[in-house]
């Protein structure tokens, strides 16, 4: 890994996308924001997956991020994106820090199911709370940017640029983390926990840290999506949302920090087109695509790009 050019490549791709933004139809910008922001959630799953863990409950933090933004507006009148994202990250991180003490002791399916249980508990709470909008959720206004309040079209483009900046920062930070000693513990834990313990590292603490990182990424992703969509509802924390993230994570592969974003963009595009052209059978199209991918690209889409990709 002497000369890893992932980050410059990501930066280049994002800058091109940002420059192209004003010239493409607004629905493209919208799909861009949503898919890239969901890519952030998947990036968190990648960190966990390298450790051998799959969380079926990332939707919990995704929704927490969204609701943090929504409630900050509703009760505090805050619409600023910077405040929104920081708030979402703090809320998601804090909740994950607390739940992490329990979850860090679990592996495999039990980790997946316990995280799912937490997400579903939030779902139950949100659906039953009239003050939080119940099943309908509530709307969030067009965001402002450090005091600037542009019109809706411009705001979407600015939000895209902001999302791109968040992603670049997240990729850089995650890349740095994964190439640090603590980050290299990921695959080590996946391969053999007990040896990691013998080396003098706490497996529990390592997993706890990664869980919090994944939650923060998911929270920021949820905040960005809800700002772009302008609406939040309990569906954000339902298990199908979480399943979708896992779906994209495995479809993308875990070889590179860029993979989740490529996977996420392709997934959103496939879904949009499938919904448009075969509204009754878009699940089927997705399912068939997933099956084919698993059969012919076992290491995810990313194996198309990098031959040298590090694979377990």
């Amino acid at each position, binding site marked *: 890994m002497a000369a890893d050019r992932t980050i410059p490549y990501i930066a280049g791709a994002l800058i091109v996308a940002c420059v192209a933004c004003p010239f493409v139809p607004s629905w493209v910008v919208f799909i861009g924001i949503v898919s890239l922001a969901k890519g952030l959630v998947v990036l968190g799953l990648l960190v966990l997956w390298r450790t051998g863990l*799959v969380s079926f409950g990332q939707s919990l933090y995704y929704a927490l991020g969204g609701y943090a933004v929504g409630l900050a507006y509703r009760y505090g009148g805050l619409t600023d994106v910077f405040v929104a994202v920081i708030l979402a990250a703090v809320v998601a991180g804090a909740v994950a820090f607390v739940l992490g003490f*329990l979850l860090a*002791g*679990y592996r*495999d*399916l*039990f980790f997946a*199911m*316990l995280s*799912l*249980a*937490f997400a*579903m*508990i939030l*779902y*139950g*709470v949100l*659906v*039953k709370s009239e003050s939080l909008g119940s099943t309908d959720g509530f709307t969030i206004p067009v965001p402002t940017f450090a005091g600037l309040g542009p019109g809706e079209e411009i705001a979407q483009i600015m939000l895209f640029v902001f999302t791109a900046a968040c992603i670049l920062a997240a990729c850089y930070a995650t890349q740095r983390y994964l190439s640090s000693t603590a980050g290299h513990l990921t695959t080590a834990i996946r391969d*053999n926990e*007990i*040896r990691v313990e013998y080396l003098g590292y706490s497996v529990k603490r390592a997993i706890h840290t990664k869980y919090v990182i994944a939650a923060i990424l998911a929270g920021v992703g949820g905040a960005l999506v809800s700002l772009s969509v302008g609406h939040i509802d309990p569906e954000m924390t339902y*298990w*199908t949302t979480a*399943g979708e993230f*896992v*779906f994209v994570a*495995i479809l993308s592969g875990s070889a590179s920090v860029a993979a989740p974003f490529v996977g996420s963009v392709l997934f959103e595009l496939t879904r949009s087109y499938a919904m448009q052209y075969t509204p*009754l*059978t*878009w*699940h*089927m199209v*997705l*399912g*068939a695509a*997933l*099956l084919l991918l*698993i059969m012919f690209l*076992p290491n995810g889409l990313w194996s198309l790009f990098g031959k040298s990709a590090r694979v377990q």
Partner: protein
Amino acid sequence: MLTFVAIIVDALVYASWLFLVAVGLTLILGVMRVLNVAHGGFYSFGAYTAAWAIGVYFERGLPDAGSFLVLAAAAIAVGLTLGVLIERGLLRWMYDRDEVVIALITYAVFLILEDAVLLIWGVNPFFAYQPSTLLGNTDIATLPFPNYDLALVGLAVLIGGILWWALSFTRRGKFLLAVIHDREMSVFLGINVSRLFTITFIIGAILGALGGAVTAPIISVTPGIGVEVIVLAFAVVVIGGMGSIAGAAVGSLLVGLAHSAAVHLFPQIELFMIYLVMSLVLAFRPRGLFSQAQMRRI
């Protein structure tokens, strides 16, 4: 007192339903170590086939009592077809993959089955209330309970009993227990694990479809009924300990009690009661109630 009776009976009924829905999943998970998301697809296929077959059956004006056979036949037909198709056609090529990837494959199958249901039966709801109304009600402490619901309790006990007997006292069943315990060793001892996998998957699929078929008369069969059932069944299986039939039974009872108490006493928390129970059980028994000790790999 009335509330108490209502809670207990509702709990039994709900627990039986959960057990019927979850037992196929736990069987497949225990034997094959496959987290079968497609189970939700078997459930909805079973429900739709049953509802449709009941409709056709009563249109012909055939004897009422036979409708219960129709339910069972629908479940067996669906389970047999889908089970053979999916296990022989797809899953058996995938057993060397990671468990999570196999779960994802079954998720893909689930997505396909969901839309297959839409393509075959359309988006309009189906009603097959006849078998349920046919049986009438019974009063327990002045509260009327549908006999059909009470029959579900009997069915759950029957299915649980048959499975327990088959696993403990038949040759094949003992083979299955051996495979659950140690798959590699079973292969060395000459057990045809591949054939057992096929049989297990088919039985699991039939049980999943049966769960749907017996539910069809008490709900309106609409698209998307499988989605919720998957997570409920997962929760029951995880609470009980993966692959344990007794665990699934106890897990269902626990969740049934908690759920029905919540419905009658604290309706606000009813929606997530099952997940609360699951979190609590896992917090104290990290691998479920009836879990075996795990060896540590060094």
